[in-house]
């Protein structure tokens, strides 16, 4: 669920950040033009007003290249050096541009703007440079370990020739599966860094690692989907465009136009990746640090109190002797229609002693942004909710409501204590002792059996 949610949010944010994408696209084109245009002029001056270009109708012709004679070595080496410089500069530029893109993709009240983009790029540059260099080195090193070493071992035995190559090819696939992990680390580190005032690259990398592995089950699928889409897209575009040979000026212009649109899309895809990882990070906020761990000593639900939507502090004593269902809710979630089911449950069982307590929470993808009044109105109008609703709370992190801290400490979810999403449900028996926890995806009607058991 989080996978598609984050992909969706990432895509939307990427499109909204089109200005940043455009800047990224234009600067890359500008940089490449720095070498491409002089080369073009050089070739044109060498060919002069020759008609030898007729040999080039099907692409590069070695016969024409041979005309350079012994100068070709010089030309190739100086061109390679130029290309190397451009690639180096391109790499540095992308570090800056990534800073800009990440900072306008993060959740913020400010609209993504060019000014924000450049500000983000500049303020994060050094930290991003370290993150990028370290991540790249890690990828190269891992690549060497994963591909180089097995290939060398396999290749060193002379018995089966080509084994080195085949092994390298096999392990390259393994690397392709591992690569997204490093991309996640780098992306999480950068997404985290842009939310912080103080720039600490290594702390960011540390966060990148911990976040990647803590949320691996949702992060990895997101990244591998994006990774495959990007690689396939790039490969298809290059194959089609580099293999096409338009012969008219108009045809070449069309090819160039299409290629530029497609490269813009490629940058947009990168924005999608950054945006998706950013939203994944927001869905899974940082784990509270160790020193703030709270030891929950309370014995039963009745020892807590909470404020209702109307602002009245209410002790949980009112639930004594009743079976209680505690739910964290949100108004704009895919699960929001569960209100209806919850209300039906309440209506069915309230006579027999069931109480449902709703706690709105805005910690999941910003899906409960409204005020208390708006929430109350939404619940009533859309779903006719009549069970008690309480004020907005936090359910995860240091500032989590004590009720949720207590419930989480007693009942673990499938993948840990943390509440994963809106509409996690806790069932508490008539003695105030939590007995069962249900995931957001569990529909209210599926709770009937457990409720009936407690009501008996």
């Amino acid at each position, binding site marked *: 669920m989080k996978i598609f949610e984050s992909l969706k949010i990432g895509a939307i944010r990427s499109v909204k950040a089109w200005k940043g994408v455009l800047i990224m696209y234009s600067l*890359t*084109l500008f*940089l*490449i*033009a720095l070498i*491409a245009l002089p080369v*073009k002029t050089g*070739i*044109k001056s*060498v*060919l*002069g*007003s*020759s*008609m*030898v*270009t007729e*040999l*080039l*109708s*099907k*692409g*590069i012709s*070695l*016969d*024409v290249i*041979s*005309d350079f*004679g*012994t100068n*070709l*070595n010089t030309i190739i080496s100086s061109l390679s050096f130029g290309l190397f410089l451009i*690639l180096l500069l*391109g*790499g540095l530029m*992308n*570090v800056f541009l990534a800073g800009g893109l990440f900072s306008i993709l993060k959740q913020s009240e400010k609209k993504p703007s060019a000014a924000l983009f450049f500000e983000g790029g500049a303020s994060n540059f050094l930290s991003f440079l370290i993150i990028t260099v370290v991540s790249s080195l890690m990828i190269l090193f891992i690549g060497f370990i994963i591909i180089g070493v097995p290939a060398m071992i396999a290749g060193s035995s*002379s018995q089966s*020739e*080509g*084994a080195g190559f*085949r092994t390298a090819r096999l392990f390259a696939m393994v690397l392709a599966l591992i690569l997204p992990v490093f*991309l996640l680390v780098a*992306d999480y580190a950068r997404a985290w860094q842009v939310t912080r005032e103080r720039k600490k690259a290594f702390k960011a990398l540390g966060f990148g690692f911990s976040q990647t592995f803590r949320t691996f089950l949702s992060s990895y699928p997101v990244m591998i989907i994006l990774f495959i889409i990007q690689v396939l897209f*790039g490969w298809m*575009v*290059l*194959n089609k465009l*580099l*293999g096409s040979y338009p*012969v*008219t*000026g108009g045809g*070449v212009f069309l*090819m*160039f136009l299409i*290629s530029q649109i497609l*490269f813009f899309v*490629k940058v947009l895809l*990168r924005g999608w990746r950054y945006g998706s990882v950013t939203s994944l990070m927001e869905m899974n906020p940082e784990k509270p640090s160790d020193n703030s761990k709270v030891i929950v000593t309370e014995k039963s639900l009745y020892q807590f109190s909470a404020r209702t939507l109307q602002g009245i502090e209410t002790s949980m004593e009112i639930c004594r002797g009743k079976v209680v269902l505690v739910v964290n809710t949100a108004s704009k979630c895919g699960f929001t229609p569960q209100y209806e089911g919850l209300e039906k449950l309440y209506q069915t069982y309230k006579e027999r002693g069931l109480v449902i307590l709703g706690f709105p929470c805005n910690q999941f993808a910003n899906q409960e942004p409204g005020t208390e009044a708006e929430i109350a109105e939404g619940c009533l109008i859309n779903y006719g909710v009549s069970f008690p609703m309480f004020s907005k709370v936090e359910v995860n992190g240091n500032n989590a409501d004590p009720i949720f801290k207590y419930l989480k400490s007693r009942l673990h979810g499938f993948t840990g204590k943390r509440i994963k999403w809106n509409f996690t449900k806790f069932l508490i028996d008539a003695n105030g002792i939590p007995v069962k926890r249900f995931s957001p995806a569990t529909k209210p009607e599926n709770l009937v059996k457990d409720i009936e058991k407690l009501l008996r």
Partner: protein
Amino acid sequence: MMKKNLITLLVCLVTAASVKSQIVLKEPLSDRQTYYKIDARLDPVLKTVSGSMEAYWVNKSSDVVPDIRMHMYMNAFRSNKSTLYNESGGSPGSKKSDFGWIDIKTFTDRNGADLIGRMQFISPDDGNNQDQTVLQILLPKPALPGDTIFLKFKFETKLPSTIRRTGFNDDFFFVGQWFPKFGVYEPAGMRFAAIGGWNCHQFHVNSEFYSNHSVYDVKITLPVEYVVGSGGLLMNEAVSDSAGKIKTLTYRAEDIVDFAWTAWPGYAVFTDQWKHVKLTLLIPKERISQVGRQFSAVKNGLEYFTENVGPYPWPHLTVVDPPLIGAGAGGMEYTTIFTSASAPNIPDYFYQPEMVTVHEFGHAYFMGILASNEFEEPWLDEGVNSFLEERVMDHYYGPEAGILNHPWLKISDKSLGRAAYLLAGSRNIVSNAENSWNYVHGTYGMMSYQKTATWLYTLMGLIGEETTNEVFREYYRKWAFKHPSGKDFIGVVNEVVTKKYGNRFGPDMNWFFDQFLYGTGIVDYKVDRFFSAKISGFTGVINDADSMAFKASKYKEDTIYKSTVQLERPGDIILPVDVMIHFDNNDTILETWDGKARFKDFFYTGTRKVDWVKIDPGYKIRMDVNFANNSMTKEPDGVPVRRFIDKIIIFMQFFISFITL
């Protein structure tokens, strides 16, 4: 013992009969001046091939010959002071097992008289007394015309660990240049020799071979697990020890110039048939996916050569694709067996294995059938063969993609050859008519292979493709199974060209070979500029008293232009060239320029103006070092350059995007 003697007797009888009889071919193709019968055993541990050899040489000249000269090629690997290693630098290795040599254990004549005392090593090429690759035997009695000199050897050949055509690596063996081999006795007049004598050169780093056509009866004994391929036809295969671990293979070859074989347990063997030729392919098991490619390359070669040169006479042909551990043996020819050079996982748009296969196959013609002297005229084999190879590749694998056919980039084989010539720094320091070891500054390969192929293309550009094919057919008809020299080839060209074109290119084509084969010049033709100027009426002052001015042109109706086309010849080589001139009214004029002067101007008067000029519009003068200056136009086509640059931009955009995180 009794039984063994009987078998020996039987074998002797069979052998005696087989020398004269025809087993492989219907009739002898050559005069068979030499014969070899070898019984050898491979020791895979000691890396030696040892055995006995009976051989003869017939004095078919009218000279009295006092000595015999034989090649002892394997001695080139005996030390780092051999001529081969003097020329290449380095050493055959660091341990005794790395070196190679051939030792003669016993050496007698037909009657068992010892000849060891009459042998000595000589160095006819460079006087290097450390080189032992040419053996001279001073005969007890000079060989009179018609005499047959019969020799019996016991020898041991140790293979070197660094494979230069021949050698071993682990359990891979390629055994070539491995037995004492006769030089070629050339009587006066043969290959334009002034006086008769032995032509028996030392083993050089850049030289190949020269031999008479012979019959070979060869027995090879080795462990049963070895898969063997050879240039002979397999007559018999038998397990030759009681434990069943050793086998003996008996081969027969007729009218080939050398006998080589390979043994490796890792080969997979495939067979195929092309008309009368049984094809055998030995290929590492990992490369089975390339079997089809190899067979179709050989068949393409057979088809093209049969049609455009002459028939392939033997019923057998073995192709070896050596494993990577034996890569040093790759790309070598021995007429009825040759080695390709491929690798695992070669993509199907890259025709390098096919190219090597076609090339080495072609040597069956230019080294095997037309057995020229590769020591002295390497171009006549390697260059002529490269020309045919490039034509086969571009014919069968795409005219613009004979070597690489990828959607992003296509390269034709003939362009690759021309590029190797044009991009070489030392392309005009030595002529094409040199002994193979005299190509200084690393020019041997470029000169013998690619430069020759490129000027043969230029010759074809002048005389046409069909006449070129006729040249090769006639060369084959006249010289097959003889030993033609370069001058003999030129003679065939002259004959065929004058028969077809009369005096069009002069009384003969010697002017062409004088410049390309024997000269060092380059070809370069250039359009300097062209312009069309309006012809104005007569104005001016004749004398002070009588000035006159005629405003009106005598051409009243139209504006009249005088067009001038200025051509230049910066290169030294003189060739007749076509010049195509195109006018703005779509007229096209084809002129010819004999190219003799350093420049040439053409003038045209009329209402039309010149739009563009092309020298050699068909790009047939492939020796021209600069195609770009061969033409000039008012409206150059910028589209290909723009397309190229745009693609560079696209590629770099995506590339930068890929490599950044």
